[in-house]
């Protein structure tokens, strides 16, 4: 027995993790999947009702709003963070003084909890005493900024706060990428008479493709998981106008005792993540092999 343990020590060390993962990840995913086919409400009950929960989910206006919001939020959040992050990285890469300090400032929001970010922006954007009042005091007496309490605009406040929090991180990724560009390439282009903008557009940016895809995957991942920011900034409101799928899942599974429906929404979220991840990992693996 002892000898067996000694020769199989690596496996023994890994075994607890493997078992825990098997249960707490794959087992639990299976459990949630199973639950999504039942009519469980307060407590799990294993009476199967086929796809009923999924049908209920996609005919629930609140879920459809959450999906729409996720689309708006993800696209804008990724697009703005990428543009801003790339721009700041390019400027920071032009051998500026105080680079370290500036970089630190761009990145610090990433260390903060989304709940803190949400709390801060909730105060800054509040219609009574926040930005609106500031603009009035500065003499723009007609300035109106009520996105936080506007059904159609609330989701954009979440974009603002999320970009503030995460764009510095995209900057750091691009900066690392830019530092890896071969100087000789740039010099050769300049010898050939290319302007700075042409050099960036035709030579450096194409080299940033892997960073670009990496950043998109990370940002999309942050977007799909976004829960705390919404909870802290708008509480999903006004009404449920700024709900995201994660907030929907939480509300229905835990506050409204609609376990089956909550499980179905979680499975759709998992499907969404896999839809982004699988092609990405597939292309990564293929490029590594070739």
């Amino acid at each position, binding site marked *: 027995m002892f000898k067996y343990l000694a020769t199989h020590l690596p496996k023994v060390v*890994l075994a607890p993790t493997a078992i825990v993962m098997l249960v707490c990840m794959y087992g639990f995913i299976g459990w949630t999947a199973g639950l999504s086919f039942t009519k469980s409400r307060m407590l799990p009950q294993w009476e199967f009702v086929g796809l009923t929960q999924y049908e209920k989910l996609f005919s629930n206006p609140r879920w459809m709003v959450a999906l729409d919001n996720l689309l708006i939020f993800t696209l804008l959040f990724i697009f703005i963070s990428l543009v801003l992050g790339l721009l700041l990285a390019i400027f920071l890469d032009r051998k500026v003084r105080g680079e370290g300090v500036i970089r630190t400032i761009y990145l*610090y929001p990433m260390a*903060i909890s989304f709940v*803190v970010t949400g709390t801060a922006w*909730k105060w*800054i954007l509040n219609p009574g005493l926040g930005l609106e009042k500031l603009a009035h005091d500065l003499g723009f007496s007609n300035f109106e900024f009520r996105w936080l309490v506007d059904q159609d605009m609330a989701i954009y406040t979440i974009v603002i706060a999320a970009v503030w929090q995460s764009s510095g991180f995209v900057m750091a990724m691009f900066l690392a990428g830019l530092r890896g560009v071969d100087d000789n390439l740039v010099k050769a282009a300049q010898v050939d008479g290319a302007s700075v903008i042409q050099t960036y557009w035709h030579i450096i940016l194409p080299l940033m493709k892997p960073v670009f895809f990496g950043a998109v995957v990370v940002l999309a*991942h942050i977007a799909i998981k976004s829960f705390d920011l919404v909870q802290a900034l708008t509480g999903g409101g006004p009404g449920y106008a700024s709900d995201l799928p994660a907030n929907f899942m939480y509300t229905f599974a835990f506050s409204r005792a609609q376990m089956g429906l909550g499980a179905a929404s979680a499975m759709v979220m998992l499907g969404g993540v896999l839809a982004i991840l699988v092609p990405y990992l597939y292309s990564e693996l293929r490029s590594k092999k070739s």
Partner: protein
Amino acid sequence: MNNLQYQLGRSFIYSILIGFALLYLAPLYVMLITSLKDVEEIRSGNLIALPESFNFSAWAKAWSSACTGSDCQGLAPYFWNSMRIVIPAVLMSTVIGACNGYVLAQWQFKGSNFLFGALLFGCFIPFQVILLPMAKLLAVLGLANTVTGLVAVHVVYGITFTTLFFRNYYIAIPSELVRAARLDGAGFFTIFWRIFLPMSTPIFVVTVIWQFTQIWNDFLFGVVYSGPGTQPITVALNNLVNTSIGGKQYNVDMAAAIIAALPTLVVYIVAGKYFVRGLTAGAVKG
């Protein structure tokens, strides 16, 4: 002419960079000055106006007497809850991750790569998909609404990241090292202890910082698996902000938000280099 153009270009670059730096700093500045004003001053002044005098009473209130729901003890008890969750969870997940990473990088066996892939998947799943069964399991184990339960959850779902960090760090070490040590009669643990641990300080720092930030900032697990009295600070902060007994007190809200952010901010300022490294390692996923 050329020189002038250069000068113009430089000033353009600097003004953009500094302008954005100010934008990124603005929310922190607003939080800080708001926390130092009294309610009257907040109402009469504006977002960016400096307070007339520094008034720390909102901080005292946020720390020890503000209401989070029906309970009015300030953030202090929840701050310590978070510490009691974070410290054991960070230590345990880091140590387990180090052992796992060591095996996966240097003691590969048939199927170990598959295992690693299966583990890696855990870095990506949206946690919503495990929330319900985990709640059930914690209830069965009698750990629902306890600090211990939260520690366990953070360890389980933190291991994926910590294993990834250590595995990617140790994979760069040539396998001849282990082979030579084995020929000299050193065993599994001796090699880990005498050869691998002494060169692991950087990756330990990266992992501890990453886990500390992740767990301190967690809201999802906190809000689902804690009960009255065991909530972490992020949940308490959210409750504090949404409790409006006696009118909105933005100064207390802001002081509370800064208190909740302070530990991770301090870590970031002290060890920013390692923080960024963890961020990119965790993001690019090896």
